[in-house]
């Protein structure tokens, strides 16, 4: 089985976000800002690696992003994905329609092992939360799609998928080839091992460049969420503060 995982490089801050002067992007120049992939996509990669371990085949991570996205691609190769493809951008954002069509072209092109049987993505991207790229890809490919998946098994070319509804789970079944968009909690992604990281350096990562279409969901500006700047009232240090905590429990009526 040949599996594609679509994942994205996104900034990660230890503290609050700051914006660039033109209000168009997150300021990533600060020392506390790094980059990562979303938990949803880490779970998608873990699922791909597990399925290939179980059923054989290959896995490919495909990302649309700047050349430096190689860092995130290699980190997924380090947990066992076989190869990467970077659809390289200049760092400006692609809207969900443009993203879906660029990714779809890569799926149609197939992997060196043959046509893809399964595309895994996060249900939504960490930064833009558009909730639609996987569904658009499925329509462009003529494949079925299940979203919000938190449990998945594949047997005889059929994927059995579960999604959470309150405390219950809904069950869906689709015949492959299919697109499945997953959520954090699908599995516990493994940490890259040292040999995994060393192997990842040698795995193939291809770069393709295509033209960016005009945005139809066009970002005009970003703003920080309005929030009262708070500074916690320090009740004390260590166990000495316990009586003050109990007092607060009483005051707000939870005791």
């Amino acid at each position, binding site marked *: 089985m040949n599996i594609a995982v679509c994942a994205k490089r996104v900034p990660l801050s230890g503290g609050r*976000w700051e914006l660039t002067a033109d209000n168009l992007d997150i300021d990533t120049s600060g020392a506390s800002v790094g980059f990562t992939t979303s938990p949803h996509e880490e779970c998608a990669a873990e699922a791909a690696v597990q399925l290939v371990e179980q059923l054989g085949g290959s896995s490919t991570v495909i990302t649309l992003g700047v050349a430096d996205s190689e860092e995130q691609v290699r980190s997924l190769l380090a947990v066992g994905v076989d190869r990467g493809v970077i659809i390289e951008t200049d760092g400006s954002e692609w809207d969900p329609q443009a993203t879906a069509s660029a990714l779809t072209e890569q799926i149609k092109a197939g992997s060196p092992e043959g046509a893809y049987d399964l595309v895994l993505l996060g249900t939504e991207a960490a930064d833009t*939360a*558009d909730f639609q790229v996987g569904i658009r890809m499925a329509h462009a490919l003529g494949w079925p799609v299940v979203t919000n998946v938190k449990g998945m098994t594949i047997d005889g070319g059929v994927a059995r998928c579960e999604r959470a509804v309150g405390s*219950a789970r809904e069950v869906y079944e689709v015949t492959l080839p299919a697109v499945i968009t997953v*959520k954090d*909690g699908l599995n516990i992604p493994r940490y890259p091992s040292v040999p995994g990281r060393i192997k990842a350096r040698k795995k193939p990562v291809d770069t393709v460049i295509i033209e960016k279409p005009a945005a139809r969901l066009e970002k005009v500006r*970003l703003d920080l969420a309005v929030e009262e700047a708070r500074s916690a009232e320090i009740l004390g240090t260590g166990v000495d503060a316990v009586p003050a905590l109990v007092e607060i429990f009483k005051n707000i009526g939870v005791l």
Partner: protein
Amino acid sequence: MILVLVDHDRGVLDATSVQALTAARALDSDVEVLLVGAAGRDAVAELATYGADTIHLAVHDTLTDYAPLASAKAALELVSSRSPRGIFTTGTPRGNEVLAHIAAILDAPMAAEVLSVTFGDAGVHEVVRNRWGGNLTETARVHNDLLLAAFAPHAIRAENATGAGNVTEFTPNLDAADTAVRVIDRTGGAATGVGLAEARVIVSGGRGVGGPEGFDVIEQLADLLSGAVGCSRVVTSNGWRPHSEQVGQTGTKVAPDLYIACGISGATQHIAGCRTSKTIIAINTDKDAPIMGYAHYAVIGDAQTILPELVAATRAAKE
């Protein structure tokens, strides 16, 4: 006219999905609603109490349970026959999903996580929407005549109003492929203890709790306060607690009266899930941890020594 897709589960109205109806009614006096599946009949009376006048009910032999593509196809028939200027949903998993199918079929842009909408002329509309789990907002232009918008859940409170509740049933043109992906079974459901999303009090633990055993006292404190246990992603990714307890952008969003964050740094993705809690208390060894900028009260110190004392004192106070 704005068409609103309202959801029900086997006849029980999804109260969250009604928020999009309130959003639409604030923008247009002409709003119509689509319900899909014969069981939707049971949701009509309640739906009318949210001001629904015209309700289209899509009925088909194959529509026995939720099937996203079939719902989208039913909505597309109304796009042809009723020519709405917008289709609104609430961004529940189903609301986002059905709208994205519509967007994909029409090859039209779709805005998710929407907070507000301004219809424009000449096929360009403006939306304000959440990004990064609500830590940022984006103002965006949507280039299409028909505006497809999924509202961020709970950004708008559903308001009651008297609606006529007139129902028109129709049979959409569906083939087998439209219901190939549908709910075929359900599992679980009997929740034990207080559910995270509904809990009035949440005692949450992060890396600073030290390990799975550190959650014993957190469970005890949650029990004493009739609350639920929460945790950070570091905790679930270490396998200390199940993912169902994770609070945050990729976990559950909660808004309890009291949120106690023990050994949690306060990363924006964690805060995205608990920022609207009425009172936040942090217990953390680091007085400069980001959580201090969100908490109302804090205790500086080792959660592993403070929590057992707090459990004892809380128990004593209850007696």
